[in-house]
């Protein structure tokens, strides 16, 4: 009769109790245990990763809808695409009307509210910062940016001051360098998951100083005669009962030259982004569902075959006095250990990729992507681990039903 000893000859305690039996069973069958943990881990990765991705995309979409507060955007001729790109994926751009249009556009039928904005693209900095979108807005008429700013910045943006988006690199002394000049940053906004994170907001009265600064370091971003009256876009909120397309049509009827104006419908951008988001979330859900069905089938097969090959082991335990309840407890605890190990590892593995790469994921998807808050993440972790535990325990219990039927003695003598 052999005995178990460590390498240096000291005896190792090989006494096994009913409580330590599940862990011992798993330890003695490392291949089966690892295979089961991997299956459960894959289920957990798919559920947690897929759900978090969908939640973050949903957050980004809501944030985008909240920020695009206008129904219609009137932009200069041939600038509609640039304006759409600016709203949708944050490609910085500079464009402006060369003649007075805003006040005339406001006279169109169905215009409830209007405001003017100026868009200037900053220089691509030589080192360590990307291009920024400079947005000049008129605080006296604004209904798009101000409500959002006031929720996070309690004060007025004075001439020469800047409010920076979440993604903007603000130096430790609270300033930012644009066109070779240092500008004071009075507030940095929370992340929105949209292109506005890479924008800076200034009072429209600051635009001439910004243009002058650009003239001193590179080329002047707009001619001197436009710097005080420059308007890049007229943002319109349509009156109740009016469709933005109808209002756009009435604008073109004001003057024959207005037919060439560009019209951007932020609602349309949102709906096209929503459609892309819907299909992406749909495919993710299908993928997760298929993976879960396959995973559950694999778990059932593994548990059934495991119980089948352990019939004699369980029959021996029954003969030694273990009740059916005790055996169920052993199987259930084995399943619990496997599901917890797989579930937690899966969540950790998915977290290792979803959180650090969130900026990259957002950029690659070309959709608004806003990281969920800690409470939502903790909730998703709990749900993912719970689902894997329930599925694993359920599969093991189903397999256990099969074992519960025959008598122990008959099982032990099977095949003899």
């Amino acid at each position, binding site marked *: 009769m052999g005995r178990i000893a460590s390498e240096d000859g000291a005896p*190792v305690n090989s006494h096994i109790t009913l409580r330590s039996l599940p862990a011992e069973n798993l330890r003695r069958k490392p291949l089966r245990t690892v295979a089961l943990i991997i299956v459960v881990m894959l289920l957990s990765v798919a559920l947690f990763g897929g759900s978090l991705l969908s939640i973050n995309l949903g957050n980004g979409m809501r944030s985008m809808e909240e920020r695009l507060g206008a129904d219609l955007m009137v932009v200069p001729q041939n600038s509609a695409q640039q304006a759409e790109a600016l709203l949708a994926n944050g490609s910085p751009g500079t464009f402006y009307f060369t003649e007075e249009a805003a006040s005339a556009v406001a006279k169109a039928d169905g215009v409830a509210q209007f405001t003017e904005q100026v868009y200037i693209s900053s220089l691509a900095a030589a*080192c360590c910062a990307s291009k920024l979108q400079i947005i000049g807005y008129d605080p006296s008429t604004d209904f798009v940016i101000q409500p959002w700013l006031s929720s996070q910045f309690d004060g007025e943006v004075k001439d020469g001051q800047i409010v920076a988006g979440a993604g903007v690199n603000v130096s430790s002394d609270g300033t930012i360098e644009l066109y070779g000049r240092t500008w004071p940053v009075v507030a940095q906004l929370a992340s929105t998951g949209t292109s506005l994170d890479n924008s800076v907001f200034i009072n429209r009265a600051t635009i001439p100083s910004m243009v002058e600064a650009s003239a001193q370091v590179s080329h002047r971003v707009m001619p001197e005669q436009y710097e005080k009256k420059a308007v890049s876009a007229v943002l319109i909120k349509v009156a109740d009962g009016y469709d933005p397309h109808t209002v756009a049509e009435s604008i073109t009827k004001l003057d024959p030259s207005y037919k060439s104006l560009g019209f951007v419908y932020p609602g349309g951008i949102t709906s096209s982004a929503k459609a892309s988001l819907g299909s992406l979330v749909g495919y993710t859900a299908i993928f997760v569902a298929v993976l879960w069905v396959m995973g559950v089938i694999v778990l059932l097969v593994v548990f059934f075959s495991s119980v089948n090959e352990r019939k004699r082991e369980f029959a021996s335990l029954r003969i030694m006095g273990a009740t059916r309840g005790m055996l169920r407890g052993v199987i259930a605890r084995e399943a619990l250990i496997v599901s917890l190990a797989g579930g937690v590892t899966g969540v950790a593995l998915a977290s290792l990729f979803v959180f650090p790469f969130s900026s990259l994921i957002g950029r690659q998807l070309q959709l608004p992507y806003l990281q969920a808050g800690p409470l939502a993440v903790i909730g998703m972790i709990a749900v993912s681990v719970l689902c894997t535990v329930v599925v694993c325990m359920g599969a093991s219990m189903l397999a256990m039903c099969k074992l519960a039927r025959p008598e122990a003695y008959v099982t032990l003598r099977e095949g003899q």
Partner: protein
Amino acid sequence: MKNTVFASLPSVILGALIAIVPQTFAHACMGHATFGACHYSQQAATGIGVVILVLGIVSFFVARPMRVGINIAIAADALLLIAVPNLLIGVCKGQMMHCRMVMLPTLTVLGTLTIICAAAAAWVESRPKTVRQ
């Protein structure tokens, strides 16, 4: 032999990845007039990767107690790898810069995986081996 492979192979693979990845897709930002912090982080990460790779190869040919020590050293190197772009040298501050979006998370993930693998290997190798007498 099984334990040797478990204790050494992950370090070889991860060390090679850490050495190669910063020089390929997870590179530092391009277009610097002078080298920025991300460039030095990239070079340091490659050096640390080579050290992890060499330690991984060496651990194939040494005794168990030494493999424990080597894996502790690998874990310490991986900790250094995480600290280089996050604390010691840093990367560009712009949120949308390639080094911040790709290089920093890639090195952090590879470093974390290396620490987990090395810690697991050190634990497995430090346990008393049971033999049936």
